[in-house]
Structure formats: C-alpha cells, structure tokens
C-alpha cells in the first residue's frame, strides 16, 4: 500500500507527537518528591475537626460546605460528629493549628498541581500575624 | 459542507488571515493584560461600570435580532423574493450572537465562574434570561440555517421538523432584543433608560442597522462571488431600512420631548450630558467628550433618511449602499457609544465622571468584531459556494 501525501502526513504526525507528549518529556528526571505535609505538634492539637482519612478525602467538600453555611445561611458554629464545636473559618480555625501554608497545605497542592484560590482572599497565618 | 470554506481565492485567504491576525492580537491583549490585571486596563470605573464592551454587545444583539426581518416575510408570508437572502440573514445572526457572547465574556470580572449562571439559575434576574434567549437563538439559527442549506444542497425541500423551529425564531428574535432592553429599562436609578420605549427604540434601531449591514454584506458577496441575492430582495431590504431608520430617529425625538418638556432633571441630565455636555454641580467642571459624536450620529441618521426616502435615489444601488453606511455608523454611535455611557453619566449622586475607553479595551473589542467577521466570512463562503453549486 502506498502512503499518499507522505510529505504532509509524516511531518504532521511528528508535530502532533511533539505537542501532545510535551507534558511527559518536559518532566523527565524531575519526579517531584512525595509530599510530606508537616502536621502540627501534639501540644497544639491532637485531632483535626474530622479524622485524618476523612479530611484527606473530603476537606475540599467540607470547606465548601462551611463557606455556604457561614455566608449564605449565617451559621457559624459547627459541631463535629464526635461532639466538638468549631467556628467555621479557614483562617481562624483550620489554620490556627495548621499554621504554615508552605509546609502543610502547599505540600500536597503543589505535588498535584492544584491551585485552590482560597488564599486570594483569605489570609494565611503569616499575613494574619502581620496584620496585628 | 464546511469543506467548501477550505477552498478559496487568494483574496479570501488574505482576508481570513487579516481577521485572524486581529483576533490573535486581541487574545494576546486579553490574556496578557486583562486576565492577569483585571478590568482596570479598561476605562471603566466605579461610576461607569459598564462601557464599550457592553455597548458593543447591545448593538450586536440588535444586529442578530434583525435576522427576523428576512425570515418573517419569507417563511411566514411566502415572500419568494427573499428566498436567497434568508440564509445570509441567519448566518449574519449567528456571527452576531457569537460576538455578543464574546463581549459578555470579556466584560465579566470572573469569567471562570460563568457556569454559576447555570448552577444557580435565578429567574428574577433578567441577565439569566438574556443568557437563555441568546444561547437559544444561537442554537435555533445554527440548526435551521444548516438544515436549510444542506437540504438545498441535496436538492430537497427544507425538512418538515425545521418549520416549527423557524416559526419559533420569529418571536424569539424579537425577544432577544426585548430582554436586552429589559436589562436596562427596569433599573430604578438609571433615568436615561427607565422608559417603556427603550425596547421599541432598541428594536427600531436593530431593524435598520441589522438589515443595513446585511445589505452591504450581500452587495460585497455579489462582487466577490457569483451569488446574487437578487435586485428585488435588495430593494425590499432598502425599504425596510428606510422605514426603520425613520422610526429610530422618531423615537429619539420622543425621548427629547419627554425629557425637556417635563423638565425633570433626572430625565434631562443624561441627554444634556450627551448632546451639550454637563457641569458637575460640586466641582464646577464641565464634561462633554461625547457631544460631537452624538451630533454626528443625529446628522448621519437624518442624512440617511434624506438619502433613502426618495424612491428614485433608493433604486440606485450606489446611493442605497451609501445610505446604509450612514445608517450603520449613525446607529452605532447612538447605541454603541452613547447609550451606555449616557446612562451612567451623571452617576446616582449627580456627579459627572466621564468614561473614555482605553486603547487596550478598544483593541480587544476590535478583535471580537474581527472574530465575528471571521465566522461570518466562513459561513458565507459555505452558503454562497453551496448556492452556486445548486444553481449550476
């Protein structure tokens, strides 16, 4: 079988491969290390608002629900399944214990290439300290 | 059918290349400046929060709605003379709606959240309905235009299922511009727009500007392809344009009467700002950048009436084309420049803060227009090639 228009097809296929395989070959050798989020010391907090496994899987939905309950429903106090009451706030609750954004939050987010926009508005603990 | 757009003369490709170049410049400015820095690169401000982008959107919704002016006579009243121009009207409507949607996107503060309109539908908001009717109209015209054209290519009559959709497109076209007018004419604090006649004014302006653009484009198509929409179709279109430009100027005059005879400051101030300039009571500073433009618009529209009314002049296609150019420029200044800025100036506290679009804002706008014309050119290439095939 003869390949017609080979002069157009072969360069076309090569350009296609160059473009679509870019994410693979541009990252060769640069495998990022497994993220090691730094947990707060036991003196600060022993247990997050929910068990660790649940937080790992669902903290995005939890934060999303919190913001709707605070902003749209005007409710600010949330009680965890194990009966502890918390103020629903990223800066003032979550980051009171997880107070280093680079060493905790960014570890996994950077590894996964996720860019949550929370901190476009909400202050991280460093900015909160400077504000005082 | 799209493959017919891939074969064209050198002029065709040069024209597409030129439009695409403008489009790329706009994309670079939008993503290079407006996306990272925000709308501060425009001339918009706290007082004039909508400006050139939304003004272009408003003008183009009118152009899109004007498709009904060729669809209604042909499909509802079997005016055979429009048989060849309807698909051009539908394709013009498609490219106009695409431009409208693009102008909305470039005007939004957070376009990445655009889906919120669908996730949180709010029927009491006119903007929600504008989203619905504009996208619906786009779908209708795409489906109907394409179905009618492919049927014609295969030598078949327009498919039966398309007929009810075509009938639907007639009130739908009126609705898109009525809903757009409703964006403005229900706002309690904006007395320039708070008038029941805003929707009729918009429709009158649309039904002269849109057909005028269609007529000019049809003449260009006749020059560069073998497709002729027909002398009678062009003349009838000319009659429609003449009546509607008279209505448009009449409605404008009505606005002047109500404002100045009632002597109510809230109503007068915006017209005074546009046509004579206004002094801010607190600062004593006079602003009147729009004055020469607005008078030019009125003169152009009156000249268009003078040129288009005498039947013998209108019968001369060169004069008719000239009249259409006057209509397009005059109505564009009226709607695409004066309508929005005039509504916001003076602001609710009667302060005069003038809005002047910036260069980048104008360039992005030009790029959106170029994108629309790019789509228009490709669609027209398809339509004219198919029709030439069929007539051969």
């Amino acid at each position, binding site marked *: 079988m003869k390949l017609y228009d080979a002069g157009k097809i072969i360069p076309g296929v090569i350009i296609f491969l160059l473009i679509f395989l870019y994410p693979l070959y541009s990252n060769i050798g640069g495998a990022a290390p497994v993220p090691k989020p730094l947990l707060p010391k036991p003196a600060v907090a022993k247990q997050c608002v929910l068990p660790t496994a649940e937080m790992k899987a669902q903290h995005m939905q939890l934060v999303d629900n919190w913001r709707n309950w605070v902003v749209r429903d005007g409710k600010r106090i949330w009680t965890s399944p194990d009966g502890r009451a918390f103020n629903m706030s990223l800066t003032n609750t979550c980051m009171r214990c997880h107070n280093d954004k680079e060493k905790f939050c960014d570890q996994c987010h950077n590894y996964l290439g996720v860019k949550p926009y929370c901190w476009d508005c909400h202050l991280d603990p460093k900015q909160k300290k400077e504000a005082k | 059918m799209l493959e017919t757009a891939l074969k064209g003369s050198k002029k065709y490709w040069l024209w597409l290349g030129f439009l695409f170049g403008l489009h790329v410049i706009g994309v670079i400015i939008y993503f290079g400046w407006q996306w990272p820095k925000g709308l501060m690169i425009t001339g918009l401000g706290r007082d004039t929060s909508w400006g050139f982008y939304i003004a272009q959107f408003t003008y183009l919704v009118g152009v899109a709605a004007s498709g009904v002016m060729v669809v209604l006579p042909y499909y509802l009243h079997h005016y055979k003379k429009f048989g060849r121009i309807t698909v051009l009207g539908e394709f013009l409507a498609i490219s106009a709606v695409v431009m409208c949607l693009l102008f909305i996107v470039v005007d939004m503060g957070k376009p990445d959240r655009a889906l919120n309109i669908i996730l949180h539908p709010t029927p009491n*908001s006119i903007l929600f309905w504008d989203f619905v009717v504009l996208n619906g109209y786009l779908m209708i015209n795409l489906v109907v235009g394409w179905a009618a054209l492919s049927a014609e290519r295969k030598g078949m009559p327009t498919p039966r299922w398309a007929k009810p959709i075509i009938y639907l497109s007639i009130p739908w076209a009126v609705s898109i511009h009525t809903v757009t007018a409703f964006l403005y004419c229900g706002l309690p604090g904006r007395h320039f727009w708070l008038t029941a006649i805003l929707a009729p004014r918009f429709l009158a302006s649309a039904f002269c500007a849109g057909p005028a653009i269609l007529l000019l484009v049809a003449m260009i198509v006749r020059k560069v392809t073998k497709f002729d929409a027909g002398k009678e179709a062009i003349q009838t279109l000319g009659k429609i344009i003449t009546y509607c430009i008279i209505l448009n100027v009449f409605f404008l005059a009505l606005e002047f009467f109500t404002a100045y005879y009632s002597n109510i400051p*809230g109503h007068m101030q915006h017209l005074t700002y546009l046509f004579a300039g206004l002094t801010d009571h607190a600062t004593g500073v006079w602003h009147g950048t729009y004055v020469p433009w607005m008078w030019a618009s009125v003169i152009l529209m009156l000249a268009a009436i003078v040129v288009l009314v005498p039947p013998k002049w209108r019968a001369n296609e060169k004069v008719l084309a000239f009249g259409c150019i006057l209509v397009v420029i005059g109505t564009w200044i009226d709607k695409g420049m004066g309508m929005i800025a005039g509504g916001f100036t003076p602001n609710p506290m009667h302060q005069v803060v003038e809005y002047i679009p910036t260069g980048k804002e104008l360039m992005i706008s030009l790029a959106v227009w170029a994108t629309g014309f790019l789509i228009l050119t490709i669609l027209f290439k398809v339509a004219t090639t198919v029709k030439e095939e069929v007539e051969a």
Partner: protein
Amino acid sequence: MAFNRRQFLKVAGLSTALGLGGKGAFELLWPGEVGATELATRPRALHGKRWGMVIDTRKFKKPEDFEVCTKACHQAHNVPYIKTKRIEIKWIWSAYFFQAFTDQENAYLGETNEGQVLLLCNHCDKPPCVRVCPTKATFQREDGIVFMDFHRCIGCRFCMAACPYGSRSFNFGDPRKLNDQAINPKFPSNGDFPTRTKGVVEKCNFCAERLAQGLLPACVEASRKHGSGGLYFGDLADPNSEVRRALRQHFTIRRKPSLGTHPSVFYIV
C-alpha cells in the same frame, strides 16, 4: 426492526456519555453534605428581623466625625486605599447634601447644602441589586441585610447598574496589589477578615460578622468612642430598639424614596 451501524453508534455513544458523565454530574450537582450535624450561631450573636440604621446628620459636623466612621469600616474589612479615584473602593463615605438627596435639591438650603452626609449601602427592603443578580451572589438575608457571597460573584456588575445609590464598588484589579502602601501601610489591617479578589463587587455588609459576635457595626462603635455618636443601629421590627425610638422622636428622610426600594437607613436632618 433493522438496527444499522449508525443507530448502534448513537446508542453506544449516548450510553457511554451517560455512564461516564452521569456519576460525575451527580457528584457535581448533588455533592451531599460532609459531616453535617448541627449548625448554630454564636451564643452572643445579635439577632434581628430587619436591621436598620438612623444617621443623625446634625451630629456630623467636622471632617473627623466622618473619618472615624469611614476609617473604622475600611480597616475592619480590609478595604484597600486606591489612589486612582476612578476605580476606588468605598463601603462608607461622605458626600454633599445635594448629592446624597438628589430629590431635595434646593438652592436656599444654605448651610445644609454645604454640609456632608454619611452614605453607605441602604440595605433596602426591596433591593434592586438582589433582583438583578443572576447567580444570587447578592442576596437578602432573613435579618434584612443585603449580603454578598464573594465566592459566587461572576463580576457582571449588573448590581452596580441596578443600585440607585452608588453604594457598590468593583475590584477592577487585585486589591492587595492596588492598595497604596504609602497612604495605607497597614493593609490588610484586620487579620480576622479576608480581603476580596479582583473581579468581584463589594459593599457594606452591615458588619454581619460583628453582629454574629454580639458587636455593633464598626462605624457605630467608632462614632460612639469618638464622642460624636450620630449613629443609631438596631432592629426596625422591634418597637423598643434604639432605631425605632429615634424614628419616633425625630423626623427622618431616606434617599430617593420614590424609587420603591424601601431603604433601611434613615437620616435625621
């Protein structure tokens, strides 16, 4: 029934789309509530059916009487100071009497005309901004406060066109970058409150976050601390609140009453 290749492909394609997209759509549209047990307000929170404010213009004489209010508000809410007036952000500000009350333009008012009036969002009972918002990012709470969900705002600025009072500001750029460091060095000034981001509209929120802690709005507290005390705040639905008392004792006007917005901010003139 003849089942040809075209029909087979249509059915296969549709089933695949529904199968793959269906689960995803379910999770997107009905995410379910993670860990929802009880939700509550703070014990000290102030509750009301219709929050309102009465501004005694006679107590606002000197520029500082206004400044303590505007500074307190803008500092409590991390409102940036933007040098370019065209794109400034202000939640509370002052303007001439004839600018605040455009229906009362009167050349013979003398001193009143030269005087300034404190202006802010009126938290209307029939707010046009809420009517026009396409995403309910601007909405009316049960306590009457016209509140903004900055997470949902798409920045269409329809609310700014709808507001008859000019109370709304848009973030034409990133407020953290636009803030003039020379004039407003302590920005953000309130570590307990977020800033906003470019592309969203903002306005006075009647200090809902302070009410939730049992505190009065920042402007009210500041004017009392300063000694001028021209602001009354309370529940218009409660006949014994200080606002109702003030309304009984004084003649008050509202801005642009003929527009049917029913503002909750009253002015003693």
